[in-house]
């Protein structure tokens, strides 16, 4: 990338932006969007799209007039498909039980006998003792169930219209027509395929997805908990539930992503609970600041609060402390918590922020105090600012806040 400014006029704010701009933007794509978009792609490939949007364009004046007329009459409300890109099709309806009633959760006690469930499309489900199966979604194209625990064998009618998805915590199994068994244990999921082919997905599955053919089986294990360093007297949080444990906790996956400045991916690997767990384990101010960076720079500023608070309480004399307090103040301000922001920013000033940041911190403190309703202190800080920085670059902002 060339080292050119976006705008050569130095007095222009646009001129001070980095190039490329993506270095200062959040990644707008998260894992849920990736999964949702893929479902949309598959749906569209299965059902060719016939959308009104394709008709609108530069075709003919007559077509345009017709569209305008339709819009004016309220026949058309939008030309953009709903998020997820689902195309309106004739819905034959959800998958029902063989007797025509809706599918309901099935729980079989440990001492009870296996329960057989027959469905309207001639598929069958065998729920073993000690198992619980819950329907999550059922439509003309999809049937999604959650295996909460235990062992269930699915005998899916081949060439059926619905894609079956079995969510089993750390793994999910997808199939169109086959026979397979899924066993969910506390720290692993076993998939055994008797007929056909299934796709198994999970964070610990190599490459994220595996194709499993008849006669094959796969054990998807929850990542083992293996601390990278001993917290030595640090209070540890409770271990997350196995199904939520990120794979990276067992290794250094998320740290590698941080070194590559790939914060979005690092956060995806950690997850909320992983971040909390690593915060409890962290043995230095640097580690805590790194965790705060992961949360903050991946677009989850609220996740940065915990590591920053712990940094301030555990390492108050660290070189990082002042900067942590400034960052915490800015985040709290952004999270509409001006009282907390005020406390953090005041602490930053007390710890001694670098000279280049002092003006900014004081200006934000005025803003936080005004928002928190503490006008007297806001005025006092504003007066102090004017005294210390007679030609301060944040004076205008401060005047604006005090005047509110």
């Amino acid at each position, binding site marked *: 990338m060339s080292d050119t400014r976006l705008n050569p006029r130095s007095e222009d704010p646009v001129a001070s932006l980095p190039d490329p701009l993506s270095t200062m933007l959040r990644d707008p794509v998260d894992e849920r969007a990736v999964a949702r978009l*893929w479902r949309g792609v598959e749906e*569209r490939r299965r059902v060719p799209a016939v959308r009104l949007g394709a008709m609108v364009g530069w075709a003919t004046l007559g077509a345009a007039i017709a569209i305008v007329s339709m819009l004016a009459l309220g026949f058309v409300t939008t030309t*953009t498909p709903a998020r997820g*890109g689902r195309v309106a099709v004739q819905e034959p309806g959800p998958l029902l039980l063989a007797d025509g009633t809706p599918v309901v959760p099935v729980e079989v006690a440990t001492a009870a006998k296996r329960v057989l469930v027959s469905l309207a499309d001639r598929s069958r489900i065998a729920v073993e003792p000690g198992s619980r199966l819950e329907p999550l979604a059922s439509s003309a194209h999809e049937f999604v169930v959650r295996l909460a625990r235990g062992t269930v064998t699915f005998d899916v009618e081949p060439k059926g219209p619905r894609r079956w998805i079995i969510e089993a915590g750390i793994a999910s199994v997808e199939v169109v027509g086959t026979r397979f068994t899924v066993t969910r244990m506390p720290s692993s999921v076993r998939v055994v395929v008797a007929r056909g082919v299934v796709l198994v997905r999970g964070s610990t599955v190599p*490459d*994220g997805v595996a194709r499993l053919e008849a006669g094959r089986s796969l054990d998807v294990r929850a990542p083992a908990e293996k601390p990278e360093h001993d917290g030595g007297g640090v209070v540890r949080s409770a271990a997350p539930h196995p199904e939520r444990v990120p794979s990276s906790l067992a290794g250094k996956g998320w740290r590698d992503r941080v*070194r590559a*400045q790939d914060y979005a991916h690092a956060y995806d690997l950690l997850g909320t609970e992983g971040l909390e767990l690593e915060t409890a384990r962290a043995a230095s101010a640097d580690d805590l600041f790194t965790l705060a*960076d992961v949360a903050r720079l991946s677009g989850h500023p609220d996740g940065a609060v915990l590591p920053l608070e712990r940094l301030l309480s555990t390492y108050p004399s660290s070189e990082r402390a002042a900067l942590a307090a400034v*960052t915490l103040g800015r985040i709290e301000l952004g999270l509409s918590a001006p009282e907390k922001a005020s406390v953090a920013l005041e602490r930053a000033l007390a710890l001694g922020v670098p000279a280049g940041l002092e003006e900014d911190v004081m200006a934000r403190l005025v803003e936080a105090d005004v928002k928190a309703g503490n006008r007297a202190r806001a005025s006092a800080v504003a007066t102090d600012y004017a005294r210390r920085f007679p030609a301060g670059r944040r004076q205008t902002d401060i005047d604006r806040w005090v005047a509110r």
Partner: protein
Amino acid sequence: MYFVGRMSRSPFDISAPTSVVSRGDTGPRSRIEPTESDGELVRRARGGDRWAEEALYHRHVRAVTRAAMRLLARRDEAEDVVQEAFVSALNGLGQLRDEEAFEWWLMRIAVRLVHRRFRRRRFLRALGLDRGEDDATLASQIDPGAGPEVRVALSEVDRLLDALPSRCRIAWVLRHVEGHELRDVAAACGCSLATAKRLVARAEFAISEHVAVEPSGERRE
């Protein structure tokens, strides 16, 4: 203070990561990163391997979605474009002559769809019927730690981009927002390197002058 270039940051810039040792730059990636090359995955996908299709999707979906979102500034429209692009690419793998060129072939499809969206938007605007909401502007994607002055600057960029001809806008965003090399911009836009340079330069000029340029000299696709 923001500086130009990747490394030229103030040590007190708290919007920058402060605890990173190595700064080898890579964009956010999908979790699924199979070792097979694009060419190998394309060949397998042509043979009906669904896993290969999904692997191609996971490998490239983030880059395409990011680009579409930052070009269109509308989340719904961008997601629609991404889905259309992948459907078109995966259904049309047989037309791809150089399997290793999948990435930029896909991006080119997406850019073409973005063009179409811009044309439709212009058409609907002319009729006063554009009801879409710009909910994915650059300013809305800014790092939460950035200061208000940066937000103002990015809002200005959003406003200026909206006034640019679509081809200039696309070339500029791919170059200066996504950070692609000019030859890649040319590949995505389906034009020559010289044309890509000209489009980027025109956009740079318009932004530097804070005025919109007339689309009169623009070649239509």
